[in-house]
């Protein structure tokens, strides 16, 4: 049922190896890298938003009247 | 209704006349681009004659595009645009007026200048005539489609480059049929088919694009 006689036949692709594997290779690379980047983007985003949230909470607890707290809030905003 | 379009056009023309340097620099850009090509390609006249339709059309297209960011920018900065958007008249017609004015100060002079530049490429008088006619028909479409890009990028950083990125792919049909008309004439075939399709594109560009532009302007001013 399998079309190929040997693995080296399969790699050679009847002389078209470079073109076939060049196509499949780049496609595979993109389809691996794209999801990884998308997942990483969400992970770093979650970490960043969490940090921001914690900073906001701590400024809240310490009371909003003090000036230094206002500056902390500003810092988190500029780091967005 | 037409009176209102004419009023907007007249106003924009008056403003453009106060800044003739802008008009002149667009024309010079066209002249320089068209003159650079023979220097880059070489002086063989057969080759130049073959390349002329494409080179002149691409030059005119780039020159039109250069003048696009100015289309709404000044009115945006001094708040006039906001007034025009809030005005009771349909915004699409206002845009149509501005597009016509833009064509009168960019497309029309480019079309009239093109035959002179065509002489540099040793085009026949038939081809020169078709070149002028195709630019006269095609450049309104360029102004109309370009207005959409200008409105979408209004007030954004890097607006000028962004406009070209958005607008150039949409210009391709106009380029194909415009340069194709001249090409067909050079090859001894009739240019009528090309010119009529170009006319259809121009009608589409001038009468439908202003409504998309109006929607884009409303978004930009929100």
């Amino acid at each position: 049922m399998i079309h190929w006689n040997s693995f080296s036949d399969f790699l050679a692709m009847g002389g078209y190896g470079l073109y076939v594997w060049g196509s499949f290779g780049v496609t595979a690379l993109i389809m691996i890298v794209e999801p990884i980047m998308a997942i990483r983007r969400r992970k770093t985003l979650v970490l960043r938003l969490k940090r921001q949230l914690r900073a906001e909470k701590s400024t809240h607890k310490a009371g909003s009247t003090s000036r230094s707290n206002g500056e902390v809030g500003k810092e988190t905003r500029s780091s967005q | 209704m037409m009176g209102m379009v004419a009023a907007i056009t007249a106003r924009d023309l008056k403003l453009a006349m106060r800044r003739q340097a802008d008009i002149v620099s667009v024309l010079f850009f066209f002249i320089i681009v068209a003159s650079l090509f023979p220097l880059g390609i070489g002086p063989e006249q057969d080759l130049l004659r073959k390349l002329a339709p494409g080179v002149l059309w691409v030059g005119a297209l780039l020159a039109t595009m250069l003048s696009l960011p100015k289309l709404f920018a000044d009115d945006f900065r001094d708040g006039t645009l906001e007034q025009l958007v809030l005005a009771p008249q349909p915004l699409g017609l206002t845009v149509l007026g501005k597009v016509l004015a833009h064509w009168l100060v960019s497309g029309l002079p480019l079309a009239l200048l093109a035959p002179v530049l065509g002489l540099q490429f040793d085009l026949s008088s038939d081809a020169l005539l078709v070149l002028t006619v195709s630019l006269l028909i095609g450049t309104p479409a360029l102004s109309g489609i370009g207005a959409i890009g200008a409105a979408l990028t209004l007030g954004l950083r890097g607006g000028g480059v962004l406009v070209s990125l958005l607008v150039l792919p949409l210009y391709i049909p106009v380029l194909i049929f415009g340069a194709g008309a001249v090409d067909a004439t050079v090859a001894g075939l009739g240019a009528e088919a090309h010119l009529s399709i170009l006319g259809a594109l121009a009608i589409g560009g001038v009468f439908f694009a202003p409504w998309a532009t109006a929607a884009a302007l409303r978004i930009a001013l929100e």
Partner: protein
Amino acid sequence: MNNRLINWFKYASPQSFYPLAGKMIPWFTALAVIFGIAGLWIGMAVAPTDFQQGEGYRIIFIHVPASWMSMFIYLVMAFWAALGLAYNTRLSGMMASALAPTGALMAFLSLWTGALWGKPMWGTWWVWDARLTSELILLFLYIGFIALQASIDDPRRADKAGAILALVGVVNIPIIYFSVKWWNTLHQGSSVSLTKSPSMAMLMLWGMLLMALSFWMYSIAVSLIRARSIMLERERNTEWVKDVLAGEGK
């Protein structure tokens, strides 16, 4: 009827779509892998040699799915864009922006594999064929969309401006395709016609369909991942995002 309508709109808010998307992603990923393995098995291992193109034709198993997806994603993007403009829903714009990078990559893959296919078959990496040229222009349209959205800071404006651009693009794609086609027939000679495709064996067709399904599922999965990031980013000041963050990675 009324009930169903409400249920449907329930998922149109980022708040309820976010967890739903999270649940859907593993399924679509699994489907993409299953269809991909099946398609690759049929296409690369079982399918016979093409009598005209030898083994080189096997590029078709990724080239055609990538081309289909690049066009289909643009249509879906324009659909979300139109929906967003008409009903002013937050989710539509997010979906459109989430789809664009995948669409652009599919267009790139289509061009890349097309070039690698063209070289051994016609002896050239690139021909100015109507389909190739239109695909290139489609890539430009995607890049324009992404660049426009990237340069607008206000996400609401970015959504709407992108929507107008996507709709203008969708109106233009057929015009561009037919003008390039006309242009191409006028400049015969150097061009190679791609339209007379070799009659395909049933097995090859199955391989291609399975691969297309795999690409489809992949695109859905990866754009849902991206959409989830966009939802969190845009709605970061709302309560539901705070709840999500609290539940995330304890």
